[in-house]
């Protein structure tokens, strides 16, 4: 690390203490508690806890509902982050060109950041309402053409479209900044080497964008999960037939509606380990491939 100027034994600790306390209380302690409850059973009527070993895991992993939910979560993470990153990448590549529309687009494309996932859920569930929304006329011509309330594929399409809308800004900002950080001279050198704008896209821009793509993939996987709650709670409530009951939503229902603290905590632990593994995997297997000295 650079800088390192002042010498003081205690001052830096005093300075970092407030943030460390907040992180301890509301980040590390909840994680620890989740692990605690995953191995304990809460006594009914608030009577303390009893160590039960792996009993909670046996119960959770033994239920088919959990596996449906875990599968849906994995599918959602991959497809939601995949679709939103691809869309934002295409938009960033287009907005990187000096067109008349570019300044407007660069501004408008980050507007969705101001819209909460729950708000856009409310909005899209209305717009895509099979009887009242924009696709309603098509449903009158071909009944059943669009029905996210019963058709699982339609439900997921609706979730992904809404998620893409909501997730564009952050990814777009990072990728566009990455594109603009590519020295103009490399474009010139490419042109001198006979490489036209389309070819430079593949040979120069995309390879040099991989560090940003890496950052975006890591963050978007976790983000797609946290954003999923607002969408599911307002759009599908886990339906149809539990097909969109992602772990985040299931944990919420199990904990706050069914009051199954131990079960919810156990699933929390599984989900956290899953996300941590995916992130760790990305670090170890992707990161070393993507860094160049500029």
């Amino acid at each position: 690390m650079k800088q390192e100027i002042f010498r003081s034994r205690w001052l830096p600790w005093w300075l970092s203490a407030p943030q460390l306390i907040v992180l301890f209380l509301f980040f590390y302690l909840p994680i620890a508690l989740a692990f605690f409850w995953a191995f304990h059973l809460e006594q009914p009527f608030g009577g303390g806890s009893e160590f039960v070993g792996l009993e909670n895991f046996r119960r959770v992993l033994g239920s088919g509902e959990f596996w449906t939910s875990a599968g849906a979560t994995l599918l959602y993470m991959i497809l939601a982050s995949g679709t939103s990153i691809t869309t934002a990448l295409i938009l960033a590549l287009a907005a990187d060109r000096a067109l008349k529309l570019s300044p407007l687009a660069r501004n408008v494309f980050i507007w969705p950041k101001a819209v909460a996932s729950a708000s856009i859920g409310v909005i899209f569930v209305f717009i895509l309402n099979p009887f009242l929304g924009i696709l309603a006329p098509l449903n009158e011509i071909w009944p059943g053409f669009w029905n996210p309330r019963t058709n699982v594929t339609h439900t997921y399409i609706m979730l992904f479209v809404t998620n893409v809308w909501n997730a564009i800004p952050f990814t777009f900002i990072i990728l566009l900044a990455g594109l603009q950080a590519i020295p103009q001279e490399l474009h010139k050198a490419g042109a001198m080497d006979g490489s036209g704008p389309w070819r430079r896209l593949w040979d120069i821009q995309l390879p040099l964008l991989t560090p940003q793509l890496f950052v975006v993939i890591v963050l978007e996987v976790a983000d797609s999960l946290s954003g999923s709650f607002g969408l599911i709670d307002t759009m599908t409530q886990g339906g149809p037939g539990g097909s969109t009951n992602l772990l985040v939503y299931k944990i919420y229902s199990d904990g706050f509606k069914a009051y199954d603290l131990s079960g919810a905590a156990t699933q929390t632990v599984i989900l956290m380990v899953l996300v941590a593994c995916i992130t760790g995997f990305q670090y170890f297997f992707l990161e070393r491939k993507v860094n160049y000295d500029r």
Partner: protein
Amino acid sequence: MIENTSSIDRVAGAILIAGLLFVLTPLAFVVITATQSYEDFLRNNFSLIPGSHFLENFREVWSRTDLPRQTLNSIIVGGIVATGRVALAVTTSYAVVFFTGRGRGFVYALVVASIMLPLELMIITAYQVTANVALPLNVVANLGGWWGALFGGPLDLQWNLLDTYAGISIPLMAQGSCTMILVQFFRTIPPQLARAAIVDGVGPLRFLWDILLPLSKGPLTALGIYMFISAWIQYMWPLVAASSPARTMAVVGLTRLQEDGERIPDFPLQMTGAILVTLPPLILIALFQRRIVRGLTLSEK
């Protein structure tokens, strides 16, 4: 450059137009629907023609729902979270970047790790902690029962922050991205600046207050605005942390506008509410787009 770029420019232009339509069309539908009366809406369903009922709808949202109150809550929570996160980030990044000594790397790692697991994943136990913030004290005091031996009974402090502004706000600050961005920014400040200050006899706190903060005003404002917006659009945590309507935030309130199930919901009213809930952060984003982008991408260089 002398180059024939018409084909790629045409494609890029088409993509931008498609992107703009994709982002703006839903917003346009919200606005159009908000201008219609419930009766019009029932008769025409989805319409592309704006009605003239917006003011009536707005008046109804303003007087008959809790949204105005909840919008105020969002402003309060957003303000607390933005100020808090920026303040915490300033002190921590200052300690991490400008001081020698052990533990800086460890502190930074603790902070950065918190970016990987969002609050939504650990909502159950975060709720538990907020319901009794004194929990860790109790745990430490009752380890091995020493407190009981000294004072004749286990320590059982209760400090419930649920349904308070603090309880909604502080957990939202337990995330390190703001600090990470600021650390990147502080590292770009020439170290000669601090060395010169030391030579002039300026102490570390004085340097922070007199030199570093004024110097960082731009990025700090941008970060503050961004954190305000981030807090405003929270949904899951405010949903569980605030149970009384008096502490509910606007986004949660918006989703509760329709709860009577059977009849066709009053979409025009709901969309009017969506406008009220979305407009403040949207205006901030549109106005401060450049600054926010610059503030955020600092960490990506």
